């Protein structure tokens, strides 16, 4: 290779080196603050920050009481972002989320004025999103994808960064409306929140049943967050790494997979959004590790949360108790990193 030596780096490259180091430092500080408030769940917290900095949204799946709301609230507070929480219920209407036009009397007379809904925040917690009707769920579609809301003939831009963190309870299926695929695919990751271990539970008890609560400290500003988002997008990806991601996503499709179980149990494989999610997640992982390009291990690290909700099982798969996690895991084992 004929690359310049570290001492020969130009100013731009030097700036990149510094930016990566700062990124790593800031992420560590952010995760440290989250970890100071949230016991355990380090992996989930890391994935949430990853999605936040990659510009995606997260679907959290777990039983109530595992700290999902605390996680989101802490994340928003640590970055000095506005936060709103919406408890999704069957009678929740789109206007309840998006906002509505109200008649306002003022000096000029009566007029319609748009009353912003809870969606107009940097961080939105859509709690138990699968309890709302599809109509209300779909109200989030435009907001998540376009970062804007249209009410009537008026489109309102959402304040960047806009980050949706939705939760759903995997146990209580009565009275729920499973998210449609179009909605599901808009989440960068689908994360599973596991119950805390014994030690973590002790720590939770110690922290939450005492007198003091120090609150969350701000470690990052909104502008810095946007810079970090931009930096993630600048990370280059080597073609062999990208090729591995492409082959991985292709292999989730029944007709193109070398894995027999995929052909037997999968109805639809991942869309291109899955590949985008993996690459973005891998870029974040590279920067978080202080590297300038993602590696195969970065891809492996983010592949399951990025693809598990994009691989739709068929009836046989559901009946056999097959999980998308297992299939993607097998594919990661089966596929060679370089053919």
């Amino acid at each position, binding site marked *: *290779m*004929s*690359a*310049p*030596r*570290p001492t*020969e*780096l*130009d100013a*731009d*490259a*030097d*700036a*990149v*080196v510094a930016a*990566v180091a700062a990124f790593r430092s800031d992420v560590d500080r952010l995760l440290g603050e989250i970890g100071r408030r949230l016991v355990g769940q380090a992996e989930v917290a890391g994935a949430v920050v990853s999605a936040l900095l990659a510009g995606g949204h997260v679907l959290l799946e777990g039983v109530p009481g595992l700290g999902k709301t605390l996680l989101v609230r802490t994340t928003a507070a640590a970055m000095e972002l506005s936060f709103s929480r919406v408890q999704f219920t069957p009678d929740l209407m789109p206007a309840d989320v998006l906002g509505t036009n109200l008649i306002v009397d003022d000096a000029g007379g009566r007029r319609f004025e748009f009353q912003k809904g809870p969606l107009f925040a940097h961080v939105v917690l859509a709690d138990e999103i699968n309890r709302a009707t599809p109509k209300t769920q779909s109200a989030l579609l435009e907001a998540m994808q376009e970062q804007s809301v249209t009410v009537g003939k008026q489109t309102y831009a959402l304040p960047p960064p806009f980050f949706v963190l939705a939760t759903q309870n995997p146990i209580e299926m009565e009275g729920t409306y499973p998210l449609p695929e179009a909605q599901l695919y808009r989440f960068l990751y689908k994360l599973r929140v596991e119950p805390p271990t014994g030690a973590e539970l002790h720590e939770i008890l110690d922290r939450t049943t005492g007198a003091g609560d120090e609150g969350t400290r701000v470690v990052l500003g909104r502008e810095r967050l946007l810079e970090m988002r931009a930096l993630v997008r*600048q*990370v*280059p*990806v*080597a*073609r*062999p*790494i990208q090729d591995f991601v492409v082959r991985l996503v292709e292999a989730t499709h029944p007709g193109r997979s070398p894995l027999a179980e995929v052909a037997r149990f999968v109805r639809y494989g991942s869309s291109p959004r899955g590949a985008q999610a993996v690459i973005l997640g891998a870029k974040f992982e590279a920067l978080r*590790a202080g*590297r*300038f*390009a*993602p*590696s*195969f*291990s970065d891809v492996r690290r983010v592949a399951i949360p990025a693809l598990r909700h994009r691989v739709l099982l068929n009836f046989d798969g559901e009946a056999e108790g097959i999980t998308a996690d297992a299939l993607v895991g097998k594919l990661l084992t089966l596929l060679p*990193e*370089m053919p």
Partner: protein
Amino acid sequence: MRLGQIRRRLRLRATLEGAIVGGTLAAVALAAGVAIARARGGAVPAGEVVALLVLGLGAGAVARAARRIPLARCARLADAALDGEDRLLSALALEAAPATPFSRALAADAVRRAEALVPGAAVPARRPRGLPALALAASMLAAAALVPASSRAARIAPPSPVAARRAPLPPGTLDAEREAARAARDEATRLADARLAALAGELDRTLRRLAEGTLSDGAALETLAALEARAAEAAEAARREAAAAAAAARGLAETAETRPAGQALGEAAAGAADEGPADEGRARDALAASAAAHPAETAKGLAAAARNMAGTFSEAGDGAGANAEDKSGARRLARDQKAENESAQAPAGQQADDSQRQLERLRRDLDDAASACRDGDPSCASRAGERGRDLERLERQGAARDGLQRIARSAQQLRTRIGRRELGLGEQDAQAMRSFGRAARGGDQSGGGEEQSGASAGREGAGETGTAAGEPAGAGEAGRDQGTGRGKGAGNGAASAALGAEAEDAPGQEAGTGNGIGRQPGGPPLGPRATETAPAGGSEAEVPIADGAGPSRAEVIGTAAGQGFASRSYARAYTDYAAAVEDALAKTAVPEGKRYLVRRYFDLIRPRAPARAARHAP
């Protein structure tokens, strides 16, 4: 940088492993080949095996060394040796892309880390893969080459080409055959017969190679069998040609105008048998002159000649059929050999066909010439002259039949001598082989003029009783001369006396002097068994035979080999082995060069009926 060093190490490793793979494949293939060759009775020179093994090693090494090793693979190995985060791979892959601050930073980072890399850590020295397989394959090859073959074919496999070379024959061993070859060659020169000359030359070459020791027995048998078949075929063709020429001469003699030509042909035939083709062209000239002067009459003569020739074709066919029934045993064996050896058979059959076609063509030409003369064609005289010349040539070819038969006989005799292993043996061994041969043919085993009766007595005495003096069976040949069987066992005691008494009871018998071989020193079982084979005269008595009495199996067979195969004990022994014998005969695994010997041997040792021996007695 480091990637180049890594690539060199990878290539070295690939070369080594390729050599191992190539060597393994070569060793497996060679093991199979050696095993098959040994099972078929052949042998593979060790030098060739080693050379092929080395060739396999080299081919594998070259094939693997020539493979392209991408730098990306080297980068992967380097990354794995560093921290597994694919920094070098990414930098390498992004090198071709437009440079960005990120890619430059990445490249610098990769270079800095690669400097700390030790190539040996990326491609550590390790035991090449495939070594166990190579060891296993080498063991297989060694086993195939060293473990003694257990198949029957391998047990009777011919020696290796080197071992097949025999010592040069003593001077004078092949004098008789050489003389025959020389005579045939002289006759070919005298008759200007290329066919005879070729066969004589081939016999000469075979004799020379045999004398020099460069021809194994098996190869010699095959060569001689083929030569004999071709010579016999050629002799038969010559006989037909001579008969056709004689018939044509007789046809020409039927007409006054062409009679001189017929007579000229007849005289030429008589002279050819003695001193060669004298007065060549007389028949041609006579026919040409006759055609010029008397075309119509010449046409009659030519037509008669053609008619007579055609008559010999059918006779030849009949004669061939009759001859086929008179073939000698050796001739049948030669035919068997022919059937086994296609290469020897094809030229002989082609030779007969060519001869027959030649005769047919000449007959048609005679008919055509007759037609031309009958029609007053101006070419009548020239055509008649050409036919006269053709008939003279046909007559000369027929005259070579004696020489051809001589070659066939010489080849057959030489094959017999080789089959008896008389070539190169000392006089004592040759005598023993001749003795075995006589025994195999059921010939005499006793001295004197009354061979068969004496032999019969000797055999029975030897095979069954082991008595001492006065084999009753031998004596029992009513009034024959004294048997002089060669058995050496000395019976004794009361049993012998009883035997003698029984022998004396036989009418007209004399005290036989034939001796038997036996292990029983006497006793009741012996005498009566001997007497029961007496064809006439001697009294018979049934005496139970004790278990285990009599000679051993080896002794029975050994005695039969020396004294004849007509004894009942030998017949029983042979029956026990018959299945194995038939199996051996049916097996094609017997080497081709030895089939003749094997078949002939088993033919010769078949048991003879006792009565047959009696019939042969004068």
